[in-house]
Each structure stands twice: as structure tokens, then as C-alpha cells.
């Protein structure tokens, strides 16, 4: 595979389409907090996007996909310090002479983690904020905001605040902002993640139909990407590499470990004692306190069961009640009616939290200590039956199993490593059941499958929440769907 030739930019303008974005010989190295010399993330990276082109840039984790997007938007190294060299031009203007706000009407960035982009307290305000900044006339602004809100199905949520939205709803808000701004360049970082099938299809149609320059950054190749892009590139070895689509995909699959055997196939599940988790006639409500307009959401679960060693998936649209159900299962919330029982014994919230481990979508809310060792030992130290030697032994074995370095600082570790640490913490807790909330989001299939295999090793029953049909089919034989708070076995 070859790096994109930097002399592409030297062709006379009359021989090529107008260039929307060009990056020439870009090098970037993050500045370490600890003054440690870090490896460069990019060296002599070049990339050119023609006006109206649709490009997919695949990158395995930690290869700088998000950093590249932030550099293009002008916010890195401004807010994420590092040494940057090279030349970036947006519609012929040198990026080094521009501020991030100058790019508002030129380029819209949809972040992988939607939470990091919210600045207002309601959906409507969030969509209107950039238009207000542009000084747009009120009539025009209203029409754009209404259209975007309508397109992305946010009408009932217009006055809802960010913390009351699900992950997919948050992503839709960012896409509505992108639509409202109507900039000629769209930078979409894992924009398909978190979205259910309906909205994935809509985003795909939008990319196809709108005459925009689109750069989609992704760490997994999804079914939806088929026939969507003019070119598929690979970010590896600190450069953007180009080749035929099939070559890029096979190289990418190799880098992600997708050509390795599925860890679930040769994994042995050691069930010491068979247990069954059953939910019967559960009823719960979710209220959005910031709005009067949204209908009250009711969750009704007639029948749900999960046995030791089972791997069951739960698939459903955004806002259908997956997280509400998960919170009930692990005892963070109590149902208004019905009961959750293990082996026929109904359990209260406090008991449930010791039976069902819940891996939040974001690992950062579940890891909080200075070193990996302390993180892993935290729960074991609270177990009165364990001696210090035993704790040390268990922690060391677990770290080796999950390929973790005990002296590492969790907050500075990469995302997949933090996710592995989060799983390792629960592995040591040895819960009989686990709920994995969108584990596959922002992880390679191989990394996600390895985590599942390890958690299941001791015979735990696993409920996996996912939007990715491909992944769901890969891992499970039994599945539930949830729609408008109603659960159904498939």
C-alpha cells in the first residue's frame, strides 16, 4: 500500500476538480503530561479531498483518527497540546491563519463522543447555537432548526436537556446541527455508532444525496459503508495509505485482528453452578423533567430470562428503553411493579447489584483510581475473606489475562485498554450475570469478543446491548428486541 502522493497538490488547478481539503506532509506528536517523549502520531501524512467527494478513512484504534479530525477543525493542538507541522488548506485557505470559529460555515465535525460537543441546555438551543453565532436572520434560523429537528426525529425532545437523552439521541442532535449549519465539508467521526438501523440508513442516504465533501472516520467497517464512498483509505503507520478497496479492507481486517479465530469459538465456559435470572411483569417509568411535551416513557417487561453461560443480545432503536432496563437489572433503579429473581428468589436492588455486573458504555465512569493495580484490587480489598497475598495473586493473574500493565495510570491509557480494565474489574468481582452496554462501540470486533470470552469463562450469563446487527449475529443464538419499552424474544 502506498501513501497518498503529496505532489497531487502540485497539479495545475485546471486539470483537477476543486479541492475542498488538502493536507500536506502533516506531522503531529502529543505533548506528554509527564514530559515523556511520545511517539509521533503522524509523520508526513498527506490527504486530499476533492469537492463533493465521499471518503472513508479506516483506522484501527489509537492511530489518530479523532486527532486528525480535531487538527482539521483547528482545535488541536490549540486545546490538546502537541507539536504540529505541515500544511493544511480548507478551500485554499491556510488553516494556520484561521481560528476554529472561522471554519463554522466551512466544515462541521461530528465527534465520536457526542457528550463532548454539547454546550446548551436543550436540543433546540443546541441546534440554534451555531446559527446564532453566524448572525443568521431569525426566520431563516427557525426554518433550518425546525427542518433539522424534524429530519432527525427530535420533535418531542426539542426542550429536553442533554442528560435526558440516550446515546443515539445525542448523536442525532449532532447530525441535526450538521444539517442546520449546512457547511460544505462534513467530518464524521464514528458517526454511525450509537445510531439504530433507521437512523443509520438515513445518514447513509444523506451522505449519498447531499453534494457535500464527506470524510467518514471509522474504526470498523460496517455493512452500511458498502457502495457509499468514492474512495476508501487506511490510516496506518502514521500515514494515510491508498490502494484498491479490497486491499484496504483486507489490510484493515488484519490490523484489527478480524482474520484471527473468533475467541468465542474455542472458549470453554466453566459453569460451577447453574443460575437463572428471570424478570416477570416488570413495570418502570422514565420521566424527562425538563419538558412537558414529551410523552411519559413506560417500560413493560413481561418475560425475560438469562441463564449461566448464555450470551443473549438486546437490540432496539435509540431511546427504546435499553438503558432503563439495564439499570433495573443491576439494581441501580427499582421497578414500580414486578420482580427480578435469581433461581426463583426475588431480589431487591442492593442484592441485584451484587449479582449483575453492568459495564457502562463509557469506561471512564467506572474506573477512578491512580493505578491499574489499585483499580483491580479495590473490590477485592473489601472482601473480608481474602488475604493480601491472595489479592496480589488474583490481581496479577487478571492483569495478565487482560494484557494490562499494573503500574499504568488508567486515565492516560488508550480507550480499548480502559475498556479492558473496566472488564477486568468485573471479571475479578465474579458476578454470575453481566450486562454489557454497547461494548462493541469504539472497539474492534476482536477486542469486544475477547472481553466477552473472558467474562464468560467462569460461566457468567451475558446480556449484550448492541446496534450492530453484524456483531449481534456473530456472537449470539438468542436475542431480544425492545421497542417503545416493550421487550420481545426473537
Amino acid at each position, binding site marked *: 500500500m502506498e501513501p497518498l502522493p503529496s505532489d497531487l497538490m502540485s497539479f495545475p488547478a485546471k486539470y483537477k476538480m476543486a479541492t475542498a481539503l488538502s493536507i500536506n506532509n502533516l506531522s503531529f506528536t502529543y505533548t506528554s503530561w509527564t514530559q515523556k517523549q511520545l511517539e509521533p502520531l503522524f509523520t508526513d501524512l498527506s490527504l486530499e479531498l476533492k469537492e463533493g467527494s465521499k471518503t472513508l478513512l479506516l483506522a484501527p484504534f489509537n492511530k489518530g483518527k479523532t486527532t486528525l479530525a*480535531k487538527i482539521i*477543525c483547528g*482545535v488541536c493542538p490549540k*486545546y*490538546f497540546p502537541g507539536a504540529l507541522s505541515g500544511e493544511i488548506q480548507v478551500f485554499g485557505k491556510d488553516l494556520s491563519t484561521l*481560528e*476554529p*470559529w472561522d*471554519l*463554522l460555515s466551512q466544515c462541521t*465535525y461530528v465527534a465520536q463522543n457526542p*457528550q*463532548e*460537543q*454539547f*454546550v*446548551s*441546555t*436543550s436540543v*433546540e*438551543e443546541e441546534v*440554534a*447555537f*451555531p*446559527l*446564532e*453565532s*453566524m*448572525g443568521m*436572520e*431569525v426566520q431563516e*434560523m*427557525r426554518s433550518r432548526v425546525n427542518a433539522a429537528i424534524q429530519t432527525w426525529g427530535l420533535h418531542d425532545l426539542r*426542550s429536553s*436537556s*442533554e*442528560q*435526558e437523552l440516550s446515546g443515539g439521541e445525542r448523536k442525532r442532535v449532532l447530525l441535526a*446541527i450538521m444539517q442546520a449549519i449546512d457547511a460544505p465539508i462534513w467530518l464524521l467521526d464514528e458517526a454511525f455508532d450509537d445510531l439504530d438501523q433507521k437512523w443509520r440508513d438515513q445518514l447513509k442516504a444523506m451522505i449519498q444525496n447531499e453534494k457535500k465533501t464527506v470524510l467518514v472516520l471509522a474504526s470498523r467497517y460496517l455493512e452500511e459503508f458498502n457502495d457509499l464512498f468514492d474512495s476508501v483509505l487506511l490510516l496506518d503507520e502514521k500515514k494515510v495509505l491508498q490502494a484498491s478497496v479490497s486491499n484496504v479492507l483486507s489490510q484493515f481486517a488484519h490490523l484489527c485482528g478480524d482474520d484471527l479465530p473468533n475467541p468465542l469459538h474455542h472458549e470453554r465456559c466453566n459453569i460451577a453452578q447453574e443460575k437463572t435470572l428471570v424478570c416477570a411483569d416488570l413495570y418502570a417509568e422514565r420521566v424527562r*423533567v*425538563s419538558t*412537558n411535551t414529551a410523552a411519559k416513557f413506560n417500560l413493560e417487561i413481561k418475560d425475560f430470562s438469562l441463564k449461566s453461560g448464555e450470551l443473549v443480545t438486546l437490540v432496539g432503536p435509540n431511546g427504546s428503553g435499553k438503558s432503563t432496563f439495564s439499570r433495573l437489572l443491576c439494581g*441501580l433503579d427499582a421497578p414500580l411493579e414486578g420482580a427480578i429473581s435469581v433461581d426463583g428468589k426475588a431480589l431487591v436492588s442492593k442484592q441485584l*447489584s*451484587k449479582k449483575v455486573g*453492568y459495564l*457502562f458504555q463509557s469506561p*471512564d*465512569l*467506572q*474506573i*477512578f*483510581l491512580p493505578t491499574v493495580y489499585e483499580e483491580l484490587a479495590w*473490590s*477485592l480489598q*473489601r*472482601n473480608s*475473606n481474602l488475604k493480601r497475598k491472595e489479592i496480589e495473586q488474583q490481581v496479577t493473574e487478571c492483569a495478565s489475562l487482560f494484557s494490562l500493565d499494573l503500574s499504568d495510570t488508567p*486515565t492516560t491509557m488508550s480507550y480499548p485498554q480502559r475498556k479492558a480494565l473496566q472488564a477486568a474489574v468485573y471479571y475479578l*468481582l465474579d458476578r454470575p450475570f453481566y450486562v454489557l452496554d454497547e461494548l462493541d462501540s469504539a472497539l474492534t470486533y476482536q477486542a469486544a469478543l475477547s472481553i466477552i470470552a473472558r467474562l464468560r469463562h467462569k460461566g457468567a450469563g451475558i446480556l449484550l446491548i448492541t446496534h450492530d446487527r453484524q456483531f449481534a449475529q456473530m456472537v449470539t443464538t438468542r436475542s431480544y428486541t425492545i421497542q417503545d419499552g416493550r421487550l420481545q424474544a426473537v
Partner: protein
Amino acid sequence: MTTNTFVAGTGWLYRFDPRAKLLLMVLMCVWFFLPVSLIELSTVVILVVLVGLYNAGWKLVVRTFLSILPMLIFMVIFSPFNVRTGSPLIQIKSFTLITEQGLEQALRLMSRFIGITYVCTLLFATTPMHEVMLALRWYRLPYRASLVVTLAFTYIPFISDSFSQISESHRLREADDETKKRFFTRLKDLLPTLTSALVVALRSIPNLAMSLELRGFGLENRRTSFHDLSSYPYTFTHFVVSCMIPLALWFGRSIF
């Protein structure tokens, strides 16, 4: 990175002009420092709490009280000792532990604290943040300053939200045989939770700055506004009411 403080409702405070409400909030905060008796002060505090109950519901009233409870406990425990003069209430042999004046001062301090907390909470619970922003701008506060004020009032609840989520995560990580925790264990557990909440907050600062600039904060052209305050037609009447309420409470003290 911002948490909404608005609680949807239909009470009269929701229909009150935000500009007048802002004035009322300031006047009420001043009122709590006027030279009034403890009974008068407590009665006004109770009235404010009742207004909160009627407009925003008991959940908000209880949640607000619980959030200031640790502070109130500190006040009850420590402030009576600061006043050594006056008639003794509790004595251990010749040592006076608490005096009547000491107790009164503690109660007065608590009443003011509760009153001011509820008045401010009610403003933000019954007014959408963009209307607070518009009201501040109506008072000629520059846009940047108004944004800083409103961001501060949404960022603090965000940190509190992160704290709750991290606490939930702790709960899920309790050992199997862990029973009811002792006070010191709870206190010890608070440290990593606070540290993580702080880390989450610190990590979100560059993201917030990044997002504001990517949304055009910094552009020098005239900023337009999606919303306006034209849905409040009785601005003058509301201003009069805002001035009348503290005056009525002052002159009506003889009734208490």
C-alpha cells in the same frame, strides 16, 4: 458537559417574566439580611419553600434540601460555639456549652442559607437557561459575561451529575460479602469518587472550549437570538409585583 436545572411546570412562577424574576431573586436575597426577628425570617423562608412546593413540586424541594443538608449540619454543630455571650442554655459544670444567643445566631444563619438557596434554585428551576441568558442581556450584561454566568450554573450540576454516576459505579463494585458500611469507610470511599469527578470535570474543560469555538463562539459579527422574551407581555406588571413582594413582606411583619 452542561446539565439543565430547569424542571418543567405550569405554576405562576413559570409565567413570571424572567427579567422581573431575576430582580425578585436579588431583592429576596437582600431581604434575608434585613434586621428582622428570627420568627419573621423563618416565616418568610417557609413561604418561599411553599412557593417552591406549589410551583416546582416536592421532589425539587426535597432534593434541594438534601443537597444543603451537610452544610446545615455543620452550621448546627459549630456555629453555636462561636457565640460565648448571653444566657447559658447548656452548661457542663462551670463551662457554658451553648448560649441562647448562640443558638439564635445558628438558626438565623441556617434560615438565611435555606432561604437564599431556595430563591436561587427556584429561579433556575422555573426559567429555561436561555431565558436567564436573555434576561441578563436585557440588563445590558455583555454576551460573553452572560454566557459565562449561565455556563457556570449548568457546569456545576454537571460535576454533581458525574459524581452521582461515579457513586453508582462504586455501588456496582461492592464485594459480595460487603454489608452496611461504617461511617469512616464511607468517608474513605468519598475520596476516590471526588477525585474521579474532578478528573471528569477537568477533562471536559478543553472539550467545552473546543465545542464553543466550533459552534462559532469568537466570531465578531452581530449575534442573533433564536428566542426572545416576547411571550411575556406583562413585563411592567411583573416588575411592580417583584418590588411589591419584598416590600409587603417587610411592612407586613406586624402580622407575624
